[in-house]
């Protein structure tokens, strides 16, 4: 008798929660995390701009208009032109491709490598942990930009090398955070239970421990997105990143530094683009953290 009534109540519960339409979910979400949704909107806008650059951009970003060099914002050139008469709006739109590529590749590769290293470090412990952590300490000892500079200086400029340069300092940061979480997980009996079931170390790390540290991993990932874009812009600004004539925001700032007194739009708009995108990613990242961190969830 008891079981029958239990089943009924549970069945009722399941009926009570019907699937919400996605519009309702979006409204709920934007009420709970307005800033996060705003950040996400910026990110989505950027992605759309990058994907549809060929359609959206008014001009070819490489096309030089020598009749209107350094002309201010006008009907023809909404955000003005640079010193070669290239349309700044089009270069910004195409530049978002570079920014997004670097941002996503670096954030995903960097945090995933850090995730695996961090969990492995916590799982094996002992000498392996000690050695790995000291190696990571060495990487952490360098300021981010110096380490990236060293990599680019060794490997040469170019977008692949820039990505390597940005990924390298991300790995220890993520590994450190993930390791401290994984150390706590390591002590929970289900890890020992998995060992007692005869699973291999790789299986325990990837299948049993990694899913339990997804929250810090995703938080690091979203933080890295903004950071990577900023770093790429910095490296390009220093002439170590993407090379002319490929449109990239940092590079546009470099060229602008000579002319911005007379033509401020050449510096302002790329700067705004960088700030806005990093701002968007950071807002989104903060919301992800709020949602994933149970300590903050109740607020």
């Amino acid at each position, binding site marked *: 008798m008891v079981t029958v009534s239990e089943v009924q109540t549970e069945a009722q519960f399941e009926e009570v929660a019907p699937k919400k339409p996605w519009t309702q979910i979006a409204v709920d979400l934007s009420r709970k995390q307005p800033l996060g949704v705003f950040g996400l909107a910026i990110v989505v806008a950027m992605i759309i701009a990058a994907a549809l650059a060929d359609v959206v951009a008014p001009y070819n970003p490489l096309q030089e208009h020598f009749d209107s060099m350094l002309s201010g914002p006008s009907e023809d050139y909404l955000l003005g032109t640079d010193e070669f008469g290239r349309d700044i709006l089009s270069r910004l739109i195409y530049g978002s491709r570079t920014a997004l590529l670097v941002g996503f590749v670096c954030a995903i590769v960097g945090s995933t490598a850090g995730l695996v290293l961090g969990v492995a470090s916590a799982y094996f412990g002992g000498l392996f942990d000690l050695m790995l952590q000291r190696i990571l300490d060495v990487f952490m000892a360098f300021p981010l930009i110096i380490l990236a500079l060293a990599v680019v200086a060794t490997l040469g400029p170019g977008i692949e090398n820039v990505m390597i340069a940005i990924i390298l300092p991300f790995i220890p940061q993520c590994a450190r955070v993930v390791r401290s979480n994984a150390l706590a997980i390591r002590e929970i009996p289900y890890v020992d*239970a998995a060992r007692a079931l005869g699973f291999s170390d790789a299986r325990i790390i990837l299948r*049993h421990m990694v899913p339990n540290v997804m929250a810090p991993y995703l938080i690091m990932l979203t933080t890295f997105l903004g950071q990577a874009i900023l770093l790429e812009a910095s490296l390009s600004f220093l002439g170590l990143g993407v090379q002319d004539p490929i449109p990239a925001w940092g590079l546009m700032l470099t060229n602008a530094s000579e002319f911005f007194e007379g033509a401020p739009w050449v510096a302002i708009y790329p700067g705004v683009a960088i700030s806005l995108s990093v701002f968007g990613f950071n807002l989104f990242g903060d919301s992800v953290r709020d949602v994933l961190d149970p300590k903050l969830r109740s607020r």
Partner: protein
Amino acid sequence: MGALLEIDNLQTHFFTSGGTVKAVDGVSYDVNAGETVAVVGESGSGKSVTALSILRLIPKPPGEIVGGEIRFQGKNLAFCSEDEIREIRGRDISMIFQEPMTSLNPVLSIGMQLTEPMIAHMGMSEAEARERAVKLLEMVGINEPRRRVDQYPHHLSGGMRQRVMIAMSLACEPKLIIADEPTTALDVTIQAQILELMKNLTRDLGVAMIIITHNLGVVARYADRVNVMYAGRIVETGVASDIYHRPRHPYTLALLKSVPRMDRPRQAKLDPVDGQPPDLTRLDGGCSFRPRCKFAIDKCAESFPPLEEMGGQHYSACFRSKESLAEIEL
């Protein structure tokens, strides 16, 4: 028929900054196929460490098996390769842990956790393993197994989780199950159900079981044979009824007296074992129970008493076991 598992003079030590902890110091016992053997003792007596040593789950460092043999079907588990022991874990010997609330991974579904060892060890396909998982859940008395396999541990109560753990331990048809205080974290009413279930399943499937506990009631009802451990050694071993009704070692006696019993007139108060378990880094050569023992004599300080036969399969490690412990009078 030879014993399924023979532990011979096992020594597991922990090398800590405070000195060497001889958690297990010369323990020998065996388990026959299909038999239930209990290992009893208070916290820190080395009963869990012995069990973990069998599957080589002792964290190293600081722990290490420094001596002795663990022969399982003729193979010495104490010093075989990591790959060989992994083959045996989960497949031939499985383990049930104390904490059902934390022994299941919260982010993996019940079905995934149940099928994983079958896919890994028995080469089953996912569909076969899932069918068997449903059968196993049914076997351990979980209602609606087909729905339960897709649920997560937080959907289940403690008792149900322990049932799932039992199902997991049975998944690969092991020959031996080690249950480390399987009911300590459960309500008393659930404890009996779980123990009854384990007893029935191991009997029906012919699986041997080592049950580690500090609950003597469990021992009396469910174990065939009992090993009483104190400070890393076995102090008394024998058939369950002998240990329960004719204890020969003062420690066993003290343990029995400290438990409320329904079959005796109600005592005004319980008689706990006085004092603390000894510091395992600082054991002298004598009997380690001596400081807490009512029967201690000078001889006890000189050497550790060996296990002596008391008749039948009953052994006790006390110089005075042979004397009639008349005043014991339970």
